[in-house]
């Protein structure tokens, strides 16, 4: 069975030969995986792990020359710019942490410039979609092509405005919030439409609305500002035939019905550390596909290969029946996770039969 058919059949609840697989890897992890599989091509690694989905994304335009403040460690020629401290094309400063693994936002343009005076990046600037189009062509027909359109509305808004400032805005500055989110909604819809034109079968977007213990934002705020815009955004993309993949970390059970109402098809990552995938499947499995569910907080970094295998088998046995499950680590795989556990996870998933 072709990987693309496997994913689509799982979403559509048609027969599949095994559970579909997905995953994202940080550069240092990908380098170790290349060594493990004795290849210098990431594509070979993805094939060896049985990953059925390929991401494409929008690039900065040719004219954008990032201003690097602090060069990150040179990992390899493919990844050199990933963790450098820099201003991105929105004017947001991304600052690298001391261990070069993550960056965070430390300069927010809309704390310094009025929204009316702030120009969004030009979505039609040359050079944005050439690579996406080329990759989609390569993957076309064989793999499911996901158009990666992160960040979402909440995340892009707070990156532009500052986290606390934007939370304050949500409670005190309705006019500003509406104007910013509407401009982002229009811009992001255009971005996604172009990714679909390039060949994306699914649009992948994210807004972290949850934390380990509950929702980050109060539900009335989520329902007032975000859900209506998600509904408009996603329905426009679904008209063009795309599936909608939505990522939000954390314990988000109370808003899953809202997300379904807004039109999502796939929910990621359903962290087993704070939401029971079995319960989510029972409650919503007829309307959404569950993506993720293998813990990057516990099992993958700290478990044995046997424990990893058991978690994968348990998930497929308890959540996999009838389709609607795509197995992946619950977050990007970083350098703290042993290679043997990563490989073990994918092997176990490929070997486990879906229950009838």
């Amino acid at each position, binding site marked *: 069975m072709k990987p693309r058919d496997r994913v689509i059949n799982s979403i559509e609840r048609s027969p599949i030969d095994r559970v579909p697989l997905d995953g994202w890897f940080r550069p240092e992890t990908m380098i170790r995986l290349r060594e493990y599989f004795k290849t210098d091509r990431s594509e070979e690694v993805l094939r060896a792990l049985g990953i059925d989905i390929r991401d494409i994304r929008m690039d900065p335009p040719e004219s954008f020359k990032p201003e690097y403040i602090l060069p990150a460690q040179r990992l390899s020629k493919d990844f050199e710019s990933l963790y450098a401290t820099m201003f991105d094309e929105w004017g947001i400063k991304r600052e690298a942490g001391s261990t070069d*693994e993550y960056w965070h936002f430390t300069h927010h343009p809309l704390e310094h410039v009025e929204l009316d005076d702030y120009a969004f990046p030009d979505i039609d600037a040359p050079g944005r979609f050439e690579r996406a189009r080329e990759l989609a062509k390569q993957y076309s027909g064989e793999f499911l092509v996901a158009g990666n359109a992160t960040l979402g509305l909440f995340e892009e808004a707070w990156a532009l405005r500052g986290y606390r400032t934007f939370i304050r805005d949500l409670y005190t500055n309705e006019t500003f919030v509406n104007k910013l989110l509407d401009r982002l909604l229009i811009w992001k819809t255009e971005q996604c439409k172009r990714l679909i034109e390039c060949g994306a079968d699914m649009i992948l977007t994210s807004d972290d609305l949850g934390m380990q213990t509950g929702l980050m934002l109060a539900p009335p705020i989520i329902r007032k500002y975000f859900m209506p815009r998600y509904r408009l955004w996603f329905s426009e993309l679904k008209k063009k035939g795309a599936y909608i993949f939505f990522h939000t970390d954390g314990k988000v059970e109370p808003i899953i019905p809202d997300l379904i109402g807004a039109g999502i098809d796939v929910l990621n990552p359903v962290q087993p550390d704070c939401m029971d995938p079995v319960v989510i499947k029972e409650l919503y499995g007829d309307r959404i596909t569950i993506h993720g569910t293998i813990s990057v907080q516990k099992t993958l970094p700290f478990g044995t290969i046997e424990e990893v295998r058991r978690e994968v088998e348990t998930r497929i046995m308890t959540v996999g029946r009838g389709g609607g499950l795509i197995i992946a680590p619950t977050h990007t795989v970083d350098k703290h996770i042993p290679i043997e556990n990563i490989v073990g996870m994918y092997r176990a998933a490929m070997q486990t039969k879906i229950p009838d």
Partner: protein
Amino acid sequence: MNTCRDVLVNLEIGGMQDSVRAALISGLSPTEILQDLEAGMQEVGARFQRGEYFFSELIMAGETMKEALKILKPLLESSQTKAKGKIVIGTIQGDLHDIGKDIVSTMLASAGFEVHDLGIDVPPESFSAKVKETGADIVGVSALLSVTVPTISKVVEVIKLGGMRDRVKIIAGGAAMRPEYAANLGIDAAVNDAIEGVKIIKKWATS
């Protein structure tokens, strides 16, 4: 006019500064107003733990409290009130998450603690250096990423090396933290809830 406590609990950020001024001219001392606000923060924390308030509302309460402290802090400094306790707090090296840590900092500052916030991505040595410099009796280490949790033992190690372990209590907080981790890490408490962490720290300060 509403009391400062009510203004805080209702998250009326725009009215906070005027409420503090109104309380001052009505004859309340800065310390009395701070006590009133602390009661408000406790109520916000209780509403959060009951599921009536969400995380965004904890942040709003913190922001509202900061508005009050803009007026009160200069007045409190001049009245030389003794701090309830001194805490050095920060997010562990390798982790860049600051929201939970900031909430704890704000709540402790509003409860009358002297808070030395080292920010994020803090090397273990910086915690111990700050404890030495300030004479702090409590250390708070935040770690959201479970893979950074083991680094907390290094904080304990350097504090021990500095001969200060006997006089400081150490607490760790973060999403993936569990109370039972405390023993393994060699610390005095581990929590996955900012409000719970503040309660424990306050208890230590009064014991």
